């Protein structure tokens, strides 16, 4: 279980990206975070695995205080939390295989990994992960030779290598067209059904309805809604998204 308590983040420039946000995520949930661009979704997700250190508040994961973990322990926590990004964040010049293997860096012998040596069974695991997202044949290609949808699948395979209990997906389909969006989200849905908790930020109402088991909405860094996906109708969506709601829905069709 993930518990977020009174989380606040103020950036050095003075921007208050999160204001006293609290909520809980039970194991096995597919929690969707919605909110306008700039409402603090990315900041929230990054505070959970501490890519960003929150200014105040706590994050507990299975009763371990993530916010207080020293570096070594933090890395142990991180290796069970997969992360998928809007811009895929692959190492473009490296091969697909290397990108996927790098998801395993928290587990393998650090010195071996530094000289680029990977055990045979890790390579097998990487090929399996690629197989699960349907692109095992791309293992030898350079990451930037793949299409956007394929790159995001590599991103998911990399997260899978971590043997994750939790996946954080920061607008994983915002750079993809609607058809590809569904194919990517279906992979996440499948993993969720296998027991991995997913926290995913999304923009489009239809996607929220289709995949979310629960929804948290942010507005200017404040949590303005928490509830089931069904409770979010157009009126509510418009309330959260304000004037831009029309555009957001139009784009999703």
């Amino acid at each position, binding site marked *: 279980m993930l518990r977020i308590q009174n989380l606040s983040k103020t950036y050095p420039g003075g921007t208050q990206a999160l204001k006293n946000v609290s909520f809980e995520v039970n194991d096995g949930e597919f929690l969707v975070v919605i909110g306008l661009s700039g409402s603090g979704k990315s900041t929230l997700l990054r505070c959970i695995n501490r890519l960003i250190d929150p200014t105040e508040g706590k994050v507990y994961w299975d009763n371990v205080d993530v916010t207080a973990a020293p570096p070594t322990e933090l890395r142990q926590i991180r290796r069970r939390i*997969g992360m998928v990004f809007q811009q895929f964040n692959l190492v473009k010049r490296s091969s697909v295989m290397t990108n996927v293997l790098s998801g395993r860096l*928290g587990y393998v012998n650090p010195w071996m990994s530094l000289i680029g040596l990977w055990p045979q069974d890790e390579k097998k695991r990487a090929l399996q992960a690629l197989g699960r997202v349907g692109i095992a044949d791309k293992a030898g290609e350079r990451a930037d030779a793949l299409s956007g949808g394929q790159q995001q699948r590599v991103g998911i395979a990399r997260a899978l290598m*971590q043997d994750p209990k939790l996946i954080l997906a920061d607008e994983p389909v915002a750079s993809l067209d609607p058809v590809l969006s569904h194919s990517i989200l279906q992979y996440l849905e499948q993993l969720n059904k296998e027991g991995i908790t997913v926290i995913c930020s999304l923009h489009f109402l239809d996607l929220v309805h289709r995949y979310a088991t629960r929804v948290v909405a942010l507005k200017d860094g404040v949590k303005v809604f928490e509830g089931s996906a069904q409770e979010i109708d157009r009126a509510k969506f418009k309330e959260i998204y304000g004037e831009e709601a029309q555009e957001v829905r139009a784009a999703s069709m």
Partner: protein
Amino acid sequence: MPTARIIRNTLLMALVVAAFAVSFNVTEADFPRLFRDLPKGKDLILAFLTPDVATREMDTRTISIAFPIPCGSAPNENVIPSEGPRLVPSVDCTDPLTKFTLEGFDLAPNSELVIRWKLPDERLMTAIRTRTDSEGYFTSEVEARPIIATKNGVASRLEVDTLTPVGGLKPSQALLDVLDAMFETIFMALLSTTIATIIAAPLSFLAASNITKRGVIGTSVYYIMRFIFNVMRAYDPLSMALIFAFWLSFGPFPGAMALTVVTIASLGKLFSEAVENIDKGSLEALQATGANPLQTVRYGVVPQVIPDFISYIVYHWDINVRISTIIGFVGGGGIGYYLNLSINDFKWHQAGTAIWAIVIVVWAMDFLSAEVRKRLT
């Protein structure tokens, strides 16, 4: 305020003109001289244009006669044959500072001749170079300089080498020496570049804001590294070479060390900028997997910066070949030093060989580095 601006502009113009006049003066600029003095440069340029690259295998035959100076200072036992290759001086002996005629008969026709004195102490002094005609005859005026005088009853000898080409062309000694020296320069530059890379590559990560500029310690390290690189870069390679020459005296080693220091600074700066320009997203992704900082650099930063690093390294090797040529000229060994020696000895054809070698190598390195950079981007 247009008047103020006009005054200001006029003053500026006057300043520019004055500055130009001063520069003209201190350079002793005299452009017509470029043309007036052209004849003086002609021989030099011609010599440069005809580099010494090939020779023929030469068959050398030497004939010599004793030649007492002054007369009676030593017995004269020369027996000059009436036929066959022979040297015939117009006089058997002479006094210092006089001239006489030396003739040669039945030598190899159309051959190069070197006429020289072999002093009583065995030292050799080349006097004249000339050629035989188609009959194998030559005549030449020879001066009896005081240094050639007889010592302890032993007369100096007049020696004449006849050089007849046999066999085909082969690389001249000058060409071999130039290749040797060029090799030295290229590898001196390679050594400097390699050592500099080994030192600059890890340090550059410390001088990259996205890697180190975090927390008090990281930020201090970042600024210290930046400072060191900037200070090191403030020295140009030549003055650095002079500093090292004081310490290690002249030769290729101090030159290479000076080059290394300058290259560390330059590469360090360029490398750290390459590191700063990487895509942060992939670093974030690696951190999120639980990778430690070294792993993050190895898998996130290194693959992104390798092409930039390689192209900077090749580029610096290219630059360093040029610089070490110049450092060599002031005593640092290699092709520059060879060029300097040839010029000091008035061996213009050899100097020409060296210059051609420099031109070709600089062009080739330039081409190579451009090609490598093109491939990598």
